[in-house]
C-alpha cells in the first residue's frame, strides 16, 4: 500500500482534473446555449445545470462505492445495488412516500426509501443464503425476483394513483432533471459520511473477500462488519435514489474496471471508484442531454445501455463458475 501512495496521489490529481473538465462540459453544453449569459441563461446555469452536475458527481461516486461495499459483503463481483433490487426497493419506498404525501417533509422520501431498500437487502440475504455462503446463482436470482416483485408493486401503485404517476415514473427511470441545491446538500451529507465509513472498513472488506472464517481468524467480527457496511451502503443508495431515481449498473461497471486497473485492494479501489463513478455519471448525463437535441433521455437508460452488456460480458466470463 505504502509504495502506491505517492503514485496514487498523482493519479487522484489527474482524475480530479478530468472530473472538473467533464463537469465544465456538463455545465456548458445542453439543449440550450447559455454562452450569451442573459438572465435566462444565468437561471439555467445556476439553478439547473450546476446542481445537476454536482448531483451527477455525488450520485456516481456514491453508487460506485456502494457497489464496492456490496461486492465485498456478498463476496461476489456481480453484486450491485441495482442488480440486487436494492435501488428498486428504494424507488418503491419513494413511491409509497409520494402516495402517502410524505414527500413534502424533510427526509420524507429518503427515510421510506431507506426502510424499503433495507428490507429488500434482508430478504435477498435470507433467500440466497445456503448454510454460511451466498451462492452467486441464488444471489442473482433473488435480486432478479425482488426486482420483478417491486416493479409489479410500483406498477400497481402507478395504476391506482394516476395523479402521481408522472412523479413515480421518474423514480423508475432515473433522472437528474429538477435537482435542487437542497437535494445536493442532503445527498452530499449522507454520501460523505457513508463513503468515509466504508473507506475506513476497506481493509476489513479485503479480509471478508477471502471468506467469513478467514476474516474471523484475522480478528474481525464478521457479522458486525457485514451488517454495519450493508446498512450504511443501503442508506447511501437510498439517499441517492430518493433524489435521482433508479440509475443502474454504476456500482457494477465502475468498481470492476477499477479492479482491473489497480487490483483487489479495497483501500485503492474505493478512492479510484469515487472518481470513476463521477466520470461515468458525468459522461452518461452529457450523452443523455445531447444525443437527442429536442429532448432529454433518462440517464438511467444510458447507464443501462452501457452496464447491461457489461454485465452480460461478466456473466459470460463467469459461466463456468456459475454452472450455467
Amino acid at each position, binding site marked *: 500500500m505504502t509504495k502506491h501512495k505517492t503514485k496514487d496521489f498523482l493519479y487522484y490529481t489527474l482524475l480530479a482534473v478530468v472530473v472538473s473538465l467533464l463537469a465544465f462540459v456538463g455545465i456548458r453544453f445542453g439543449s440550450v446555449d447559455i454562452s450569451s449569459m442573459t438572465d435566462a441563461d444565468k437561471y439555467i446555469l445556476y439553478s439547473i445545470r450546476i446542481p445537476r452536475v454536482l448531483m451527477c458527481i455525488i450520485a456516481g461516486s456514491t453508487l460506485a462505492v456502494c457497489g464496492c461495499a456490496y461486492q465485498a459483503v456478498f463476496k461476489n*463481483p456481480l453484486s450491485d445495488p441495482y442488480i440486487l433490487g436494492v435501488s428498486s426497493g428504494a424507488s418503491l419506498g419513494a413511491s409509497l412516500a409520494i402516495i402517502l404525501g410524505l414527500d413534502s417533509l424533510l427526509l420524507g422520501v429518503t427515510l421510506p426509501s431507506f426502510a424499503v431498500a433495507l428490507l429488500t437487502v434482508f430478504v435477498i440475504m435470507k433467500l440466497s443464503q445456503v448454510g454460511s455462503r451466498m451462492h452467486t446463482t441464488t444471489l442473482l436470482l433473488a435480486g432478479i425476483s425482488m426486482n420483478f416483485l417491486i416493479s409489479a408493486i410500483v406498477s400497481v401503485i402507478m395504476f391506482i394513483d394516476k395523479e402521481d404517476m408522472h412523479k413515480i415514473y421518474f423514480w423508475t427511470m432515473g433522472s437528474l432533471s429538477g435537482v435542487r441545491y437542497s437535494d445536493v446538500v442532503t445527498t452530499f451529507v449522507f454520501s460523505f459520511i457513508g463513503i468515509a465509513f466504508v473507506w475506513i472498513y476497506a*481493509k476489513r472488506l*479485503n479480509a471478508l473477500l477471502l471468506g467469513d472464517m478467514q476474516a474471523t481468524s*484475522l480478528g474481525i467480527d464478521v457479522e458486525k462488519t457485514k451488517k454495519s457496511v450493508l446498512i450504511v451502503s443501503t442508506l447511501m443508495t437510498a439517499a441517492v435514489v430518493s433524489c435521482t431515481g433508479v440509475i443502474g449498473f454504476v456500482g457494477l461497471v465502475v468498481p470492476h474496471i477499477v479492479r482491473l486497473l489497480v487490483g483487489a485492494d479495497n483501500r485503492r479501489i474505493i478512492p479510484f471508484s469515487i472518481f470513476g463513478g463521477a466520470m461515468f455519471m458525468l459522461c452518461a448525463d452529457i450523452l443523455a442531454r445531447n444525443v437527442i437535441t429536442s429532448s432529454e433521455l433518462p440517464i438511467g437508460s444510458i447507464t443501462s445501455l452501457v452496464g447491461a452488456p457489461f454485465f452480460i460480458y461478466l456473466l459470460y466470463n463467469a459461466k463456468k463458475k456459475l454452472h450455467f
Partner: protein
Amino acid sequence: MNIITANNIHYRIKDKEILKNLSFAIPKGSITSIIGMNGSGKTTLLKLLCGIIKPTKGEIAIDNKAVKDYSIKERSQKISIVFQSVDTDFDFSVEQIVLMGRMPYQTLLSSDKTEDFEICKQSMSATGTWHLRNRLINSLSGGEKQRVFIARALCSQTDIIMLDEPVANLDTKHQIEIMKLLRQIQKENNSTILIVLHDLSLAKKFSDYVLALKDGQMRFFDKQENVLTNENIKSLFEINAKIVENNNVIIAE
C-alpha cells in the same frame, strides 16, 4: 506445559451429537495431528479449539484462559488458522494476502507500518514465498497457495497454528514439503501446531502427538508411537494396516 486444554466438551447441532465428552491437553511447542474417518468430527473440533464455534457443553482454555473469555482480536493474536483451500473471485497479490496476517494487531484506522512489512518479508522468506510476492493468488498452484497461507499464519506471530487438511489437494512431493516446513516452523518458533490429517503416514512421520476421533468421540490421545499402532488403526478405520518402523510408513493390507 500445556497450552490448550479441553475439558469434557460436547458439540451438538439440533439433535445430532457431533462431538461427545472430549477431554485432553495439548503440550506447548508440539505438533499434534487430529485423525479419524470422514464425519468423525475433526474439522468441528478444530473450529471449537480456535473459537469459531462454541461448545454446547464443557470448556476449552488457551494458556489457562477460557476461549470464550478472549475477544475475537485477542484470539486472533493467539491462534492463526490455515484452511484447506481458499477460493475467491478477487485477485489479491501474494504480498497483500500475507500482510493481512498483521490485522490482529491493527486498529480500524491504522495502516501497514514498516514493521508490518518487515515481518511479512521474514514470513515469506521463511516459507520460500518471497519470490511470489507480486503474483496473484489465483495464479498459484495448490502447493504454492498453501505456503502463502502458512506465511500469513507466521506473519500473525501467534503461539498456535491450526491447519485444516493443509495437504489434502497436493501431490506427495508437495505434501512432504509442507509438512517439513511445518516441522521447521515448530522448531524455530517453538510454535504449537494442530493439523487435521487424513494421511496416516504423514501423521506418523511428522507428529509428536496424535488425537484420534471416531463417531465424535476421542478414542486415543497420546504420543504418535502409542496411537498409530496396527491394532488402533484397525479399530479406528476398520482396515488392516502394517507399520514399517524404519520408514514410518503405514500400508493397508
